[in-house]
């Protein structure tokens, strides 16, 4: 049984992916048990205490004390982005495995610092990039890898969310992380060059960051990829923060694969609401399950530090492109 410490109930802005995503997945995961929680600070103390009471586990005062607990095998990290790299490295140094909210860190330099620590203290580190494990994406990846469309030469992606809180960092560092990683997973190719267009179309505050990003990426072998991602305003009948368009179209030398990553879902309509409940295990459950298998069997996790590093290299080039207004090379 894997003992899990829930570290933090926070994230970028008002995010609490621990409560919304990881806590339910850990509770449902056979072979894992939440043994303690620890807040990231005063801001999520009340949430941590409430969760601890509900689960009947201790709420630790400090991370160091929580990491000293021998019943903790793995830390589920959902602390504010500014603390994330430090918490991840502290957990690894303490000999714990880690599942870390995305993005893994605030900068590429922080990711490299994590890599250095991980090399000295080998543990399972799974960055939470769950969409590559969504069932239609897994199937698409297998179809591509078996040559169903021939040699891919272009991917188009849409990742649109309606409503919810705009990430104070801008959505390039938040929503865009997901499709950047999925394209990497689908193609198995490294990005070489990035051009970015951003906008703020739905949020009026004068200093609001981007809520729209178009990433135009050149990959190895002349493959091109385009990602449109946005957090739009709220839409009627859509729960705030829901994905409303999540698609990947892969064009290859011998065919086209059109992936609606909103599948597989049911369509349910009632007098008062419409919903699309997922069919089968969702991507977060798949991520947690894969993490557990990696911890217990030693198998390589399906997403790891190198994948997070690739995401951050793309983001690093993207931020440089925003500054220069031109395509910028991805550092290797």
């Amino acid at each position: 049984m894997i003992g899990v410490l829930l570290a933090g109930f926070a994230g970028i802005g008002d995010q609490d992916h621990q409560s919304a995503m990881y806590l339910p997945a850990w509770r449902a995961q056979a072979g894992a048990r939440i043994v303690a929680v620890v807040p990231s600070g005063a801001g999520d103390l009340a949430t941590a205490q409430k969760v601890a009471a509900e689960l009947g586990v201790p709420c630790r005062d400090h991370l160091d004390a929580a990491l000293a607990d021998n019943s903790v095998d793995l830390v589920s990290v959902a602390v504010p982005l500014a603390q994330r790299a430090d918490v991840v490295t502290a957990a690894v140094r303490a000999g714990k495995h880690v599942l870390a909210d995305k993005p893994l860190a605030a900068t590429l330099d922080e990711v490299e610092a994590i890599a250095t620590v991980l090399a000295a203290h080998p543990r399972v580190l799974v960055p939470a990039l769950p969409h590559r494990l969504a069932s239609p994406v897994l199937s698409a990846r297998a179809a591509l890898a078996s040559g169903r469309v021939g040699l891919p030469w272009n991917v188009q992606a849409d990742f649109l969310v309606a409503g919810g809180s705009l990430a104070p960092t801008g959505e390039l560092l938040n929503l865009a992380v997901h499709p950047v990683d999925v394209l990497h997973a689908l193609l198995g190719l490294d990005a070489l060059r990035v051009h970015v267009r951003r906008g703020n179309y739905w949020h009026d505050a004068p200093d609001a960051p981007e809520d729209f990003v178009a990433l135009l990426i050149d990959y190895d072998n002349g493959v091109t990829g385009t990602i449109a991602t946005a957090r739009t305003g709220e839409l009627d009948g859509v729960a705030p923060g829901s994905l409303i368009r999540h698609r990947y179209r892969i064009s290859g030398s011998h065919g086209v694969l059109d992936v609606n990553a909103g599948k597989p879902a049911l369509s349910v309509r009632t007098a008062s609401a419409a919903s699309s409940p997922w069919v089968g295990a969702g991507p977060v459950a798949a991520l947690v399950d894969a993490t557990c298998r990696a911890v217990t069997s030693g198998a390589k996790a399906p997403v790891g530090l190198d994948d997070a590093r690739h995401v951050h290299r793309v983001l690093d080039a993207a931020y440089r492109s925003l500054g220069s207004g031109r395509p910028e090379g991805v550092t290797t």
Partner: protein
Amino acid sequence: MSEVGVLVVGAGFIADSHIRALTAQARATLAGVVDVDPARAAAFGYAHGNARHGSDLAEALTWPDVDAVIVCTPNDTHVAIALDVAAAGKHLLVEKPLATSVADARRVVDAFAAAGRVVAAAHTHRRYDYGIAVRSVIESGAIGTPVAARLSILGGWIWPDWRAWVLDPERSGGHSLHNGVHLLDLVTWWLGDEPRRVYARGRRQTAGELRIYDYLEMTVEYARGGTAVCEMSRAHRPGSFGYRDVLVAGTDGLIEQGWDAESSLLFTEGGLAQVPASGGDAFARQLGAWLDSFDGGDPVMSPDDAVLAVALGVASELSIERGEPVELAETFEAVRA
């Protein structure tokens, strides 16, 4: 207004669509056909009610019942023909692009302004059902201010063989000018904003020896901050592939039209096929607007917009060549100089 006599110049396949539009209404009639190939002109004339035919444009422009001209010739011939039509005092509907350079496009528009005659470029997608429907929703205010668009028109039909003039960039201006302008114009019309910058990527997918890009991706930035990403392809496989996808995001909502939104799906032993819904005739609508504009009616697309479409296409080709974004102002510099 009495019945308008229309001369068709260029008897290739797109002329058939214009002829069908002509024969479907009563305000205009086919006055004759001109083609550089006399035999093709004769065959075309024979097939369309023994219409008068010839291979000399100057002579045809003197035929007494010619009031207006529809030009369906290769893109690099548009300018010279258009200037002759303007000099003859006839109205003109010319296949897109209006010209293959901004300077030439401007010359044509100026010549028709001086002659007091109408010139229009056949940007037919503004008259397709989907083009009109999207614009209508935007005009209704339902999605607020349109800010971002995605338009993909993808096919697998490459031109017949290496003799196709479209494959020669000197003749077609490149794929951005030949087909790309449809999308560049349409998204600009939908967004209702001034394009400022183009970043394009092109690919020679069907054959490495191609001199045009059979796949284009063109990203346009607008003055008020809007963004459009357009894909135009003749590069996809299978060859029967036909796929159009529309997304327009506004400050208050979204418009989407998926690839199968206008079709029924037919499942047979041969696989899956689309059965498109019976729709309006874009060429007929285009012809009607053109005829209306002779008397001051709304031309749907202004001559300045036709010049702008050329500038966007030129910027796209330039951006692919450079691998960097191109300011639209740069494409107008030759005109100002």
